[in-house]
């Protein structure tokens, strides 16, 4: 069993508003075999958390630690974290002309293997065919340039395809449901559920409870203003769906501005 731990994580970014602390002490422990979901309003730091775990150099860790099987990975570059077992299905995957989807995925698989054990072409194609069929992806997608000209839905499916091909111990799915219609969401959920098992753990980041009807989580965390404010089982997501974030915030007695919240002064600008 593998373990991923986030301890008192503080993360800042430099943007046009200056140096801003986004994560203000996040604690989270997950194991392979578990499905965790993080829900929270816009601007609360969900994507910052996923990018920081993966190792995006744009995010600066001020305090705290991230441990994979007890070892701190904070000093590791993104590629080393990936080879050690982390995977991030990105919200905005990059487009790369001239590099085919298939050749990229083969390179990604081989990056985890030594020179004497590279995946054979036959084995690779077999696996690719199987996984693409599972995700209802047409064969030609394999020979198209990586994400180039893909629709929003195609990009999401392609992220899940990579997940299925690489089979990492831990995957973070950053808003994999955004912009998907219900049928596409079911396909994506089918892909993730196919990975479910004792050797796979995932952290699903989502705004909406809907995806969690198809990928039922073991643990649900609610994040607000850079912290996890409440954790529970799958029922917590349903409660949230009914009450909304404002209801939960008030129930917890938190003094937290919500970005999309118009009734209550946010503390920023003129309300």
């Amino acid at each position, binding site marked *: 069993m593998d373990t991923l731990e986030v301890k008192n994580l503080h993360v800042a970014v430099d943007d046009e508003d200056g140096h801003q602390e986004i994560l203000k002490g996040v604690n989270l422990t997950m194991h392979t075999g578990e499905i965790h979901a993080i829900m929270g309003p816009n601007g609360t730091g969900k994507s910052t958390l996923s990018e920081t775990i*993966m*190792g*995006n*150099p744009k995010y600066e860790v001020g305090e705290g630690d991230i441990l994979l099987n007890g070892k701190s990975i904070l000093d590791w*570059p*993104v*590629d080393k974290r*990936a*080879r050690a077992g982390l*995977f*991030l299905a*990105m919200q905005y*995957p*990059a487009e*790369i*002309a*001239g*590099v085919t989807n298939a*050749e*990229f*995925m083969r*390179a*990604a698989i081989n*990056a*985890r293997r030594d020179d004497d054990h590279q995946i054979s072409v036959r084995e690779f194609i077999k696996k690719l065919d199987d996984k693409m069929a599972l995700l209802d992806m047409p064969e030609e997608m394999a020979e198209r*340039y*990586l994400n180039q000209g893909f629709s929003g839905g195609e990009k999401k499916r392609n992220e899940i395809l*990579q997940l299925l091909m*690489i089979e990492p111990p831990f995957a973070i799915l950053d808003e994999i449901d955004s912009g998907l219609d219900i049928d596409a969401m079911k396909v994506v959920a089918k892909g993730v559920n196919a990975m479910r098992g004792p050797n796979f753990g995932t952290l699903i980041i989502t705004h909406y409870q809907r995806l969690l009807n198809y990928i039922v989580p073991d643990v649900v965390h609610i994040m607000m203003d850079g912290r996890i404010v409440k954790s529970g089982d799958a029922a917590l997501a349903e409660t949230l769906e009914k009450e909304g974030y404002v209801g939960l915030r008030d129930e917890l007695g938190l003094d937290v501005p919500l970005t999309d919240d118009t009734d209550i002064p946010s503390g920023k600008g003129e309300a």
Partner: protein
Amino acid sequence: MAFGPKQLDGAALAAAYADLDHSAWLTAQRQRAAEAYSEAPWPEFAKVSYHAWPLFGTGTAAGVTYPDGLPTSAGVIVRSLLTATDADLAPFKDYLFKQTGPTDRLTAFHIAHLNSGVLIQIPDHFHSDQPVVLNTRLLAGQNAHHHVLVVVGSDAQVTIVDRYTGEDGAASADSVVTEIVVGENSQVNFANVDAFGSNITAFIRRHATVAANGVLNWTAGVLNDGNMLADTSTDLVGTGSTADVKVVALATGKQTQGLNTRVTNIGRQTTANILQHGVILEKAALIFNGIGHIVKGARGADAQQENRVLMLSRAAHGYANPILLIDENDVKAGHAASVGRVDASQMYYLMSRGLTKDVAQRLVIRGFLGAVLTAIPLPTVQQELIDTIERKLIHGQTVAHQQN
């Protein structure tokens, strides 16, 4: 010899080549070029200061070999330039040195000192799926002044692959000048790959003319290691003629590569496309001059170009310099140019899947060069080019790691 001699002695050159030239006409061309030399201007390569390069090597012995011999295809006439008699030259005389006359200093020097060359005639109505492949190897320590003329008749369809490699070893100063004639209604796929070592300083000039409704699809791989100038020019003379010119270049080490890629729209309804993609490693410099010239009277002409350079090191120098010269109103023209670094978000994405920085970088670069590479007509040549690029990139990355 840097800067070159002030003048050339035509009579002495004629005497030196008396036994080598089999055609009095050719010897007369040498003398004509020798006379033109002293007054001829340096060829224009914007932003490249090459005048101090050792470009003026001499020697009567051939500076090239043909590892696979000269091409043989049914119906195709192939002659060696120096051993061609006046009679052998008859079908070529109307074209030889016509596009690339002794109008600049380097071409004049080249013609005066020619020591090897190949003449190829593709007849009218020629059709073949088999490419005509010419492999030429530049010798170490032996200055080559090598001239190639390809004349394609009308209504023909042919693929020509013109590859240059070099022998490693002693330095040499070489010139390679190629003339291509595309006849009416003919379609020519021409691919040249120049890949020789740092011991060779070269002036490379290739010039094509395209007759009415002719199509020239030209792909060029410029992968030399030494300082070099490469001028790749096309004149769209005939009405409705088309040129699609794709250039890929890789500059490494301390070399300077200066490239002029030019298409001149002369005839009406002519279409020109230039696409140049280059990568610079280490301390190298790469200059892309993309020149689109629409002359007065070329009504309905279309001239488009895109020049892009990726720099992989802080010590690299790159220029993407689009030059549009338009002397006619009823035309379309456009250009795009950029000099940049490897996109950080692309690198992050690839590396987030476990690819090392080096592998990710090579993949992004191959993608960047892909638009040109995939246009190369012969799969084996395409693969060879990809392999050469991969090898050079790995070498460049290794050097970069050693410096860090």
